[in-house]
C-alpha cells in the first residue's frame, strides 16, 4: 500500500514538473479563467443583482471558481488522458508492473494540485480586486464544495477522455463540451436570465450550474444547495462508472 502511494506521489510530481515545463500550456490554463475573472469582473463592479443588495461580484467570483475547477479537473485531465492514450503512453505504462491505481492516482493527485493552485489564484484575485470573499465561517463549506467539484469533474474528465479519438481534438472536445453549458448556466454573467423554460430545465440537469451554486452559497446567502449537492454526487457516480467501464489503455 505504502509503495503504491509512493509511486503515485512520484508520478504526480513528474506530471506537475511536465505541466509547468510546457509554459504556454500552464499559462493558458491559468490565464483563461483569470482573464475572464478580471475582464467580466471589472464590468460588474458596483452593480447588484436586480432587486437585491447582493453585489454581482459576490456571485460572479464563485462562478469563476467553478469555471477554474472545471478547467483544471475536466478539461486538463480529460485532454491529458486522451493525449496519453493517443500517444501510446498508457500502453507503455501497461508493459510495466506499475498498478493502474498508482498510475491513475498520480494523475489525479497532480490534477488536484493544479485545481488547488488555480482556485487559490482565482479566489485571491477575486477578493483583492473586487472585495468578494466567502462569508465568515463558510470557508470550510467552500473548501468542501471545491473538493466535491474537483472529484466530480475529474471523473467526468476521465469519462470524456474515452470518447476523444485523437490528440489533436482533445483540447477542443474538452472545451466545446462544457463552454456552451457554462455560458447558459450563467457562470460568466451574474445577471444572466431569460432562458426558455426547457433550456433552464436542461441547464439544471448539468453539473456546471450546480457547482457554481454550491460555491456561490459560500459567498452569498442563498437557499441551501441540497439539490445541487445531489446533482454533483450523481454526476460523480455516472462519470466514474462510465470512466471505469470505458477505460482503455490504448486506442
Amino acid at each position, binding site marked *: 500500500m505504502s509503495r503504491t502511494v509512493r509511486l503515485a506521489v*512520484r508520478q504526480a510530481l513528474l506530471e506537475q514538473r511536465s505541466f509547468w515545463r510546457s509554459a504556454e500550456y500552464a499559462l493558458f490554463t491559468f490565464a483563461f479563467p483569470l482573464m475572464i475573472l478580471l475582464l467580466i469582473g471589472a464590468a460588474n463592479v458596483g452593480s447588484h443583482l436586480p432587486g437585491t443588495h447582493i453585489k454581482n461580484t459576490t456571485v460572479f467570483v464563485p462562478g469563476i471558481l467553478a469555471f477554474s475547477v472545471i478547467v483544471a479537473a475536466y478539461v486538463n485531465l480529460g485532454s491529458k488522458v486522451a493525449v496519453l492514450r493517443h500517444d501510446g503512453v498508457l500502453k507503455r505504462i501497461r508493459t*510495466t508492473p506499475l498498478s493502474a491505481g498508482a498510475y491513475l492516482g498520480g494523475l489525479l493527485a497532480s490534477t488536484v494540485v493544479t485545481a488547488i493552485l488555480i482556485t487559490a489564484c482565482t479566489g485571491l484575485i477575486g477578493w483583492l480586486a473586487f472585495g468578494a470573499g466567502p462569508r465568515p465561517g463558510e470557508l470550510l463549506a467552500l473548501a468542501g464544495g471545491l473538493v466535491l467539484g474537483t472529484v466530480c469533474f475529474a471523473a467526468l474528465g476521465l469519462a470524456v477522455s474515452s470518447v476523444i479519438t485523437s490528440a489533436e481534438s482533445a483540447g477542443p472536445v474538452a472545451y466545446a463540451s462544457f463552454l456552451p453549458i457554462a455560458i447558459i448556466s450563467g457562470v460568466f454573467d451574474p445577471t444572466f436570465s431569460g432562458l426558455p423554460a426547457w433550456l433552464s430545465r436542461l441547464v439544471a440537469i448539468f453539473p456546471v450550474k450546480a457547482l457554481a451554486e454550491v460555491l456561490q452559497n459560500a459567498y452569498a446567502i442563498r437557499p441551501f444547495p441540497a439539490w445541487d449537492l445531489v446533482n454533483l454526487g450523481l454526476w460523480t457516480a455516472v462519470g466514474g462508472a462510465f470512466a471505469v467501464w470505458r477505460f482503455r489503455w490504448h486506442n
Partner: protein
Amino acid sequence: MSVIDARPPVPVADDFAVHVRGLRMSFGGTEVLHGLDFEVRYGEVLCLLGPNGAGKTTTLEILEGFRAPAGGRVRVLGLDPAAQPARLRERVGMVLQECGFPRQVRVAELIDLWRGYYPSPRPLGELLEAVDLAGARNTQVRRLSGGQRRRLDFALALAGDPELIFLDEPTTGFDPEARRRCWAAIENLRGLGKTILLTTHYLEEAERLADRIAILRTGRIELAGTTHEVAVRAGLATRISFTTPSALRRGQIPLPDGIDLTIRGPESVCHTANAAMTLRLLLAWATEHGLGDLDGLAVTAPRLEDTYLQLTSGDHG
C-alpha cells in the same frame, strides 16, 4: 557500448523461457492463430519472422499478457501471462510498436521513473551507457531523433533488469544507419545473456540476429530452427558451381555420373541435398579428366531468403 555485466537467468519449472503449445486465437469468430507450437530457450534470440498480417504481433501480445488466448497452453518464465500479468511484467522487458513517451520529460528523469516501477532495477548510469544516451540525459524526450527514441525504448525495457525481452518489429521504419545501431544494441543484449524474442518481417534482420528462427505465416508456424536448419527443412538444395572447363563446353569429356549438372555458358551449376557427396563425386570426375581443382568452384548454402520467398510466394502484404 556495454558496461552491463551479465547475470545468469534464473531457471524455472519449465526449461524454456517461453513455451507455447497449440496456441489458438480468434477475433470476431475468425481464427487468426491456428495452433502454434514453439519455444524459446534461456539465453537465445528467437526471431518470429513473417509477412505483415501473419499474426506476429498477436502472438507477442498473448505472451505479454495483453490478450487471453482462445486455446492452447502458454508459459512465459514459467508463468501464465493471462493469469499473472503483474508478476510477469516484473521480469520481462517489452519494446512494443508505436509506443509514445510522455511529453515534456527528460531522458534521465523518465528512465529513473521507470526504475521505480521494478523491484530490482538496473542503475541509471548503466542504463544510459548501455543505450548510448548518457550525453542526452537532460534532453527532453520530444527533441530526440528517431534512433535515439528507439534506444530510449530499450533503456525503459531494460530498467527492471528483465530476464526476457520482447521486441516487436524493433527496426520497422528505420534508415539503414539507425537499423544497424539498433542491431548492435540487440546484440549487446544478447551478450548480456538476455533471452530475446523478436518479431520482424526483415529477413536480413532475422539472419543477422537470431539464434533460431520460426517462420509464421497466416497463423501457422511453417518452419522453425536455426537459419540453416530452416533452409534445409524447406527442401532447399545447396548450390555448387564452377567455371565451365572448355573441354566440357566443347563436349570432349562426358558429364559426371550421378550429378544433375547444368551448363549455363561459362558457368556450370548443380543443386544437391548432399553437398559433401556431390563435391566428392565432382572432384573425382575432375581429377579423372585432368580438370584439376575446378576453377571458380563455389558452394552456396541455402539461404533464408530463398526459403522465405519460397514459403511466402503468393502471399500478399
